């Protein structure tokens, strides 16, 4: 394999968007008959690279060669006809059409302009047989499971003499059995000589199916490795970008001294879970306690937070608030019990852009009071002024639309929105992402203060240093499963957490 020429080479690919250098001289090589994993955290540039490959985006610089000839696709259709097919994360097929129609939509076998239905069905059956799939090609696609739909999408992709098949997060909505079926098909296609580029967040799956791995970080190429020569721990290091050995000890002691954990916990999740979001987990949060959630992006941290806030409904287990079993049907119930939640998705789920800073700040408190009991203007001004000063929000004018503020200041406005409601538990999902270092430290200091004042905080961050600095207890997530809970004492450091992230719960048993 290594001796032959790669079927596809991408060399020195760069691509910028306004304000973001999404790809910076990235290389990628794909050989015939291999499954090649493309790894990296969210924002590492995986999707951009795939879109460059399939012609959705142009490049600023760099070349793509297919079978030694330089190519430059102007769109997915052209890429497909050249033999580069893509199956996207969300199956983009028409569930209301039949299986056969979905496979041939846009390129139906025709005679004199009329569709040859018999021919189409025959070819669809032949294609699916190649994937060991024996289903009725006349049935509506929507009547099949997501896994089957995924396979139909692959059948559509390989029909056109595909030599390169790109699978963008194909397993994210499949269960274990379905994943196994997909892998069987991937191995079979590999053995037929197709080069498969496999994008996934799941580390186990990479080791189950991939021959080689290319790692991206922050739009740059970290390296290309043979899977069996790259231990999982090293892969995680390369994705996160920190060598465990050189990780410096953090300034300040870990907040090991746990605030009164005796008595009834504020929040007590027992085997709480939601299908295809996060596996059942148990977690207790006490008053004044900061619980950190660590794990790679996409490992299920946000899903845990959303279940605890009622933003998504749990379909497994139970939740007790101060010992009382509580069904969280919507955020309203959670807010009523004293829980606040700052979403990681500030723009889509946080701010109401055209409303003013003042209106955004009082929104949660006003919602809790109901529209018939408006907060008197004088009280609004008091609250807003207090938090604009306490959090040093700039500009300090409460009547500008919040859309005009910087990301860090928007984040502070959202913090203020919840602090005004005086919650007993505040869930902060990536509160410091994408904001400058000054605002970041202010928010960290604030979290410590709040917890000293008795408020419980669930702190979610991709930055281990932050989680370690602030948390009393750290829960580690991996592949949408809570694999470990560690009391943040002197024995816990970034090394150990990363090992847990890389290896899962089993590793915790081994003395480190």
């Amino acid at each position: 394999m290594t001796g032959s020429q790669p079927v596809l080479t991408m060399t020195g690919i760069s691509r910028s968007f306004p304000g973001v250098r999404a790809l910076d001289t990235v290389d990628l090589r794909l050989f015939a008959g291999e499954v090649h994993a493309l790894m990296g955290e969210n924002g590492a540039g995986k999707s951009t690279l795939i879109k460059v490959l399939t012609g959705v985006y142009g490049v600023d610089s760099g070349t793509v060669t297919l079978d030694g000839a330089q190519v430059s696709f102007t769109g997915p259709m052209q890429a497909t006809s050249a033999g580069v097919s893509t199956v996207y994360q969300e199956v983009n097929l028409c569930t209301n059409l039949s299986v056969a129609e979905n496979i041939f939509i846009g390129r139906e076998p025709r005679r004199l302009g009329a569709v040859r239905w018999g021919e189409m069905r025959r070819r669809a059956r032949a294609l699916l047989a190649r994937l060991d799939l024996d289903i009725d090609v006349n049935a509506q696609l929507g009547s099949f499971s997501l896994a089957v739909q995924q396979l139909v999408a692959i059948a559509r992709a390989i029909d056109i003499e595909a030599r390169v098949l790109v699978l963008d997060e194909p397993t994210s909505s499949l269960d274990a059995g379905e994943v196994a079926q997909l892998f069987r098909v991937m191995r079979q296609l590999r053995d037929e000589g197709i080069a498969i580029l496999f994008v996934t967040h799941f580390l186990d799956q990479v080791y189950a199916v991939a021959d080689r791995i290319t790692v991206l970080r922050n739009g740059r190429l970290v390296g290309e490795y043979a899977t069996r020569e790259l231990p999982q721990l090293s892969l995680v290091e390369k994705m996160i970008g920190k060598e465990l050995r050189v990780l410096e000890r953090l300034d300040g002691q870990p907040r090991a001294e746990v605030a009164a954990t005796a008595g009834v916990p504020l929040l007590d999740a027992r085997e709480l879970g939601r299908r295809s979001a996060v596996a059942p987990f148990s977690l207790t949060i006490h008053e004044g306690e900061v619980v950190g959630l660590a794990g790679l992006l996409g490992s299920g941290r946000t899903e845990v937070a959303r279940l605890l806030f009622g933003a998504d409904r749990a379909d497994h287990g139970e939740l007790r608030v101060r010992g009382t079993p509580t069904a969280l049907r919507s955020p309203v119930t959670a807010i009523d019990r004293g829980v606040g939640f700052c979403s990681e998705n500030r723009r889509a789920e946080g701010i109401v852009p055209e409303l003013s800073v003042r209106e955004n700040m009082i929104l949660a408190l006003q919602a809790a009071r109901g529209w018939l009991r408006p907060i008197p203007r004088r009280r609004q001004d008091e609250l807003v002024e207090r938090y604009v000063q306490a959090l040093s929000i700039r500009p300090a004018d409460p009547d500008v639309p919040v859309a005009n503020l910087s990301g860090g200041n928007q984040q502070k406005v959202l913090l203020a929105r919840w602090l005004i409601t005086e919650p007993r538990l505040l869930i902060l999902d990536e509160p410091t992402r994408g904001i400058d270092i000054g605002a970041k430290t202010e928010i960290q200091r604030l979290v410590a203060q709040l917890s000293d004042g008795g408020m419980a905080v669930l702190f979610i961050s991709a930055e281990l240093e932050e989680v370690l600095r602030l948390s009393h207890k750290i829960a580690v997530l991996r592949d949408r499963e809570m694999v470990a809970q560690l009391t943040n004492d002197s024995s816990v450091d970034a090394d150990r957490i990363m090992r847990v992230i890389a290896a899962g719960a089993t590793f915790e048993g081994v003395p480190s």
Partner: protein
Amino acid sequence: MNSDRSGARALTGHRLFWPVVVLVVLLAANTIYRPGFLSVQLRDGHLYGSVVDIVRLSAPLILVALGMTLVIATGGIDLSVGSICAISGAIACLYISRQPDQNSLGGVLTALALALGVALVLGAWNGVLVAVIGIQPIIATLILMVAGRGLAQLVTEGQILTINSEPYKAIGVGHLLTLPLAIVIALAVALLIAAVTRRTALGLIVESVGGNARASRLAGIRSARITFLVYVISAACAAVAGFMMTANVSSADGNAAGLWVELDAILAVVIGGTSLAGGRFSLGGTILGALLIQTLTTTVYAMNISPQTSLLFKAVVVIAVCLVQAPGFRARFVRRRAPAVAAVTAGEQPKEQVPA
């Protein structure tokens, strides 16, 4: 000099600047064409004049458009208002026509209460379809827009129902304190809605739901209740407008009453600066928009533009207003840009392009 320029910029940048300009131009054109156009006279203690007529005739549209403003601010739309006008007018007229004394004030008030009650039920129907069942607003209200005409026909038994009731007629053509009663009613409803939305937190919450529904849900807003409520308010406004329309002509025509008023109302809301995508709304802007549309209609009649071309004339003016209001158009042709709008679009662009 510099401050003068920025002051002028703030003025032309105001979202109601161009609608006001168009309104003034229309009034000026009318005055040139007919010099007595702007004069208002006090006759028998009542105000008379073309301008007063325009305001009086626009009263039903103002009412419908005010309700529509709230619906649109939540990101919805209500196509059924025209039918609700027809149904409420028909029920009121039917009840009055069955009275032994059509001029009895009590009978008329009962008729109004009855018709208003039915309208509230119809609004609740829309609200349930949209907020509880989750049907898209345009489809949900289309049901009543189409079926409502049939209901109105059922009420009037397919006839034009004529009544002879002085108290009812007064809603359309009566006077109160020198002003036409219709204007007083429209003003009162406008003040009521302004008070309900701005003295309570209803306005804020409506704008929040329309501005970012997902964020509002996570902030604990029960958006279903709010959505339900705005459809009920919209129906109530339409009912009062329906009384005016039928009182104007002392008859209820299930087919014609309030026909296409929903489209004029949507237009008035948009001219008034409320985005069809929801969010910030302006009641004053909506009233201005309704006045502009009515002035346009009156102008077309006054200038003896033939009915065949009058719609075209209206379309041209409307397109002009919408274009000068559109930020994209202005950025391109007027060479200035509202900073807030520019900041938002610039911020969102890279986010959509780099899903990583």
